[in-house]
């Protein structure tokens, strides 16, 4: 087994053993949508135009909380020190953690999307746009999130501020994604917003992974 898949498998196994903790994001997603629908009056007429925004907010917030523990557990129990002492490069570790996290947190959301559509009685074209925008933006979200998670671990107190710094990064993602959902009906996959999302994701991955590695390396110094 390669190291990469070793880490991915370990993380998935821990998640499955955690008594459902990994479903947390999904549950939050469902609860967020249900509570929002209830709080906003419960009428389809008022809810339908808000639905794409609500679904995207649900995605963002259900992810937001998952990053706190992404690296913290390995750091607290000393696993990270042993990883650092091994011959494995920290990049592989970070990449594998991010992939495992994608599988455990984003994939269930994407799969649950049709149900969310049902709850708000959304037309298929909107659903398609949501699907594509989430898929395209997810690398960016996961990489930003991983970076803030690593900052929280590496800089203890100061990490809090760094997390605040990553939020401005979420704003453009949100704006392009919601724009894309609308444009998709006419422009299909070629919507310019989707290209922007793809670009953001590429940049976030290219910058995020080294930055995360650097933040984690501060722990052992």
């Amino acid at each position: 087994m390669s190291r990469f898949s070793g880490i991915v498998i370990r993380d998935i196994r821990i998640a499955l053993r955690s008594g459902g903790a990994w479903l947390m994001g999904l549950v939050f997603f469902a609860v967020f949508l249900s509570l929002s629908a209830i709080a906003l009056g419960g009428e389809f007429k008022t809810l339908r135009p808000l639905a794409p925004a609500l679904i995207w907010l649900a995605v963002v917030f259900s992810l937001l909380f998952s990053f706190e523990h992404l690296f913290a557990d390995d750091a607290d129990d000393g696993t990270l020190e042993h990883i650092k002492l091994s011959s494995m490069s920290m990049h592989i570790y970070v990449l594998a953690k991010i992939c495992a996290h994608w599988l455990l947190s984003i994939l269930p959301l994407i799969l649950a999307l049709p149900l969310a559509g049902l709850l708000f009685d959304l037309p298929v074209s909107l659903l398609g746009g949501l699907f594509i925008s989430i898929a395209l933006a997810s690398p960016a979200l996961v990489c930003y999130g991983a970076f803030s998670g690593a900052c929280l671990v590496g800089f203890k107190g100061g990490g809090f501020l760094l997390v605040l710094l990553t939020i401005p990064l979420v704003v453009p993602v949100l704006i392009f994604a919601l724009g894309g959902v609308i444009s998709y009906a006419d422009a299909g996959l070629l919507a310019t917003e989707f290209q922007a999302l793809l670009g953001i994701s590429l940049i976030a991955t290219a910058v995020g992974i080294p930055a995360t590695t650097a933040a984690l390396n501060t722990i052992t110094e």
Partner: protein
Amino acid sequence: MTQTAFQQKTSMLAVTNLSVSRGEHLLIDGLSFRLAPGDTLWVAGSNGIGKTSLLKCIAGLLRPEGGTISWNGLDIYKSSPTDTGYQGHQDSHKPNLTAIENLQFWQTVYKSSLKTDDVLEKVGLSAQMGLRAKNLSAGQSRRLSLARLLMRKASLWVLDEPAAAMDVRGRKIIRTLVADHVENGGCVLIASHTAPEKIGANTRVLTLNGGEDVQV
């Protein structure tokens, strides 16, 4: 090239003029020593004197205040060597994975060719193989962290109180393992509060309060 090969034989670990501090506290100042293959160094000293801090420095986990630590001629804080095995105060297991699953993870990280079953057998944990780490007793958990150390091919062992929580048989196991390791040309640093024993040909004791380096 020959220079390095020579050094490798005469001195694997060279600590020069090392000073270590924690917070505002200077714990170690101007410590120098060398360890060659087959050497064992016991680090003794009272609580809080700086044993753990010293060991972490040498393992590459705590940047020293001053001085250098080199391994086969290369400064470890510049080149990050990868043949140091460290066992700290923490056992670092994933509580919800079983003993063997924890070890399997390290097997893939270390790309080790050793069998997990054999290693668990060596530390006397075969019967607890399928138990989740959180259910292991203190001594069993310590044995599992020893098993992680064995899983890799490290020439320098840095052990921080390996015998903590261990019963008599466990301590005997550690003794045998360390003796084997130095016989095969490894170096070992052990911090411990029990009386140092002679293991291998060249066993020394570094007592931290006085900074003396005593031959056993």
